[in-house]
């Protein structure tokens, strides 16, 4: 009996985005990280080309708020909590991050309102301390981001970093900086595929090449909207493979920060003894969010706990292993 051919053949593909520039390219990274490039849905290697995602570790530029970073999460970073430069080094050398994502929390009006000059000082110190490519994420306060990100962008000109966030209502300043300084951009949308596409159109209209855009469609953690994130990523990916160039961007998933917001990740054992070990719980909450989104086509996973990252990497190896 002839088994019918089930392979799909897609006319479109996901763009390749390169983050990080080596000295040959005008930067100082040891190598660039490539994300995207797929010609089929995640992991179906028999059908087309798929490429592994990159794992980034978050480095806040302020000591973390204990309300947001429970003990289980602080543990791997205990000796570097007050030193973002040492934190970044640890993330790269000890925990093997493919990229570092610097969160400029200190510039937020409610968290110290640090000057652009101060933020730049920290960022440059981190740049000098690590060799992996850099992601720079502002504080999500538009006026402050519009004031500070251009300064950071200019200071890092030539390094081909990834800067965020550009949204439908606030994108022009960041696009201008990325254009001027050679960076790529994170386009934010609120779990809405139509807005995700519109952001890509608006940013492209200003002249930023499509292969310098990464989408951040907003991430919901396990139990807190993960399926919605999954279905939006899936829909966008299928549209891109069908030929929609304005959805053909790689996807950024904020796994760590979102997962550790969950009660199930943060709660102390004394609060919910029936939930068992707080450490294991938190790590697993983050790991399961990561592994589910891997299957939705995550191209960059922003992680927090190194053990969760390890579990996600192991799952990735299993999903991409050659047939036995």
């Amino acid at each position: 009996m002839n088994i019918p051919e089930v392979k799909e053949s897609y006319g479109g593909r996901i763009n390749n985005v390169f983050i990080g520039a080596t000295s040959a390219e005008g930067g100082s990274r040891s190598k660039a990280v490539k994300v995207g490039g797929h010609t089929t849905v995640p992991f179906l290697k028999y059908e087309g080309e798929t490429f592994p995602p990159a794992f980034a570790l978050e480095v806040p530029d302020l000591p973390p708020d204990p309300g947001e970073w429970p003990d289980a999460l602080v543990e791997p970073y205990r000796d570097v909590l007050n030193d973002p430069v040492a934190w970044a080094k640890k993330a790269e050398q000890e925990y093997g991050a493919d990229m570092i994502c610097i969160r400029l929390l200190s510039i937020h009006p409610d968290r110290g309102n640090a000057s652009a000059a101060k933020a730049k000082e920290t960022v440059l110190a981190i740049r000098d301390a690590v060799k992996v490519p850099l992601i720079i994420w502002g504080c999500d306060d538009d006026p402050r981001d519009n004031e500070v990100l251009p300064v950071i962008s200019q200071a890092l000109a030539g390094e081909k970093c990834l800067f965020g966030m550009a949204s439908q209502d606030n994108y022009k300043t960041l696009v201008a900086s990325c254009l001027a300084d050679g960076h790529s951009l994170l386009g934010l949308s609120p779990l809405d595929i139509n807005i995700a596409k519109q952001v890509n159109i608006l940013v492209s209209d200003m002249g930023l090449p499509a292969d310098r855009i990464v989408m951040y469609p907003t991430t919901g953690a396990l139990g807190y909207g993960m399926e919605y994130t999954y279905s939006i990523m899936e829909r966008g990916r299928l549209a891109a493979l069908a030929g929609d160039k304005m959805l053909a961007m790689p996807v950024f998933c904020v796994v760590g920060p979102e997962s550790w917001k969950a009660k199930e990740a943060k709660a102390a054992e004394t609060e919910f003894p029936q939930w068992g070990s707080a450490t294991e719980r938190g790590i697993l909450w983050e790991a399961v969010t990561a592994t589910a989104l891997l299957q939705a086509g995550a191209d960059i996973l922003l992680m927090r706990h190194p053990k969760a990252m390890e579990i996600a990497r192991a799952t990735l190896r299993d999903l991409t292993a050659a047939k036995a």
Partner: protein
Amino acid sequence: MIVIGERINGMFKKVREAIANKDAEFIKDLAIRQVNAGANILDINVGTASTDHTADMIWLVNAVQSVVSVTLSIDSARHEPLEAGLAAIKGKRMLNSTTGKEVDLAKLLPMAKKYNASIIGLTIDEEGVPATVDKRVEIAAKIVAGAMDQGIPVTDLYIDPITLPINCAQDQPEKMFAALSQFRMLSDPAPHTTIGLSNISQRLQEHQLLNRTFLVMCMAYGLDSAIIDPLDEELMKAVVTADMILNKFIYADSFLESYRRKV
């Protein structure tokens, strides 16, 4: 929807003059403008006033393919210029058209196969233009079977359920819609479908409104290509919007401009 640009046709006065005067620049400009407006295929027809259909067809093909690289559709009722046109095309070819008559299928399906051309099949047979849904589907099935016999992939077939001017036969559009739906069930994968849109409004009032309303209605019944005027901006906007409503691509606020820029 696949757009087949209809403007390079000797029935249009300026095109007739350009052919007569061998004004290649006019033809090239018309080809470029249609492709820039979104045409995926360009139809080429020397018109009835030509004194040498074969030479004029070859001349048109060469002028057009010197500036655009889309599929070219050779539109002629005469077999000699039809074959000469197909032979002159360096890229992808379409044969416009065969009917369901035995004598046409016997000659034109092999011709399409020989030139690796896709082919438009009109659901007309020895009895003439069909008046019923069943007759259209019957002729379509005959064309599909004939194509399969010749080894022409079904996805290279474009079945046309015949469009008449609306004043001639107002009961026919409903039959066309039903036929379009049924054509999709003839095979898996199904053949493409097409219409000569301008026929619906020929010599009537409100051409553009009639054309775009009828086209959108046909798209709702599964029409996936049409021979139209891509330079009619309102028509093209309606096509893009209908495609979006049919979930062919994802909505964004700038969907119209984004489509326009893509082409």
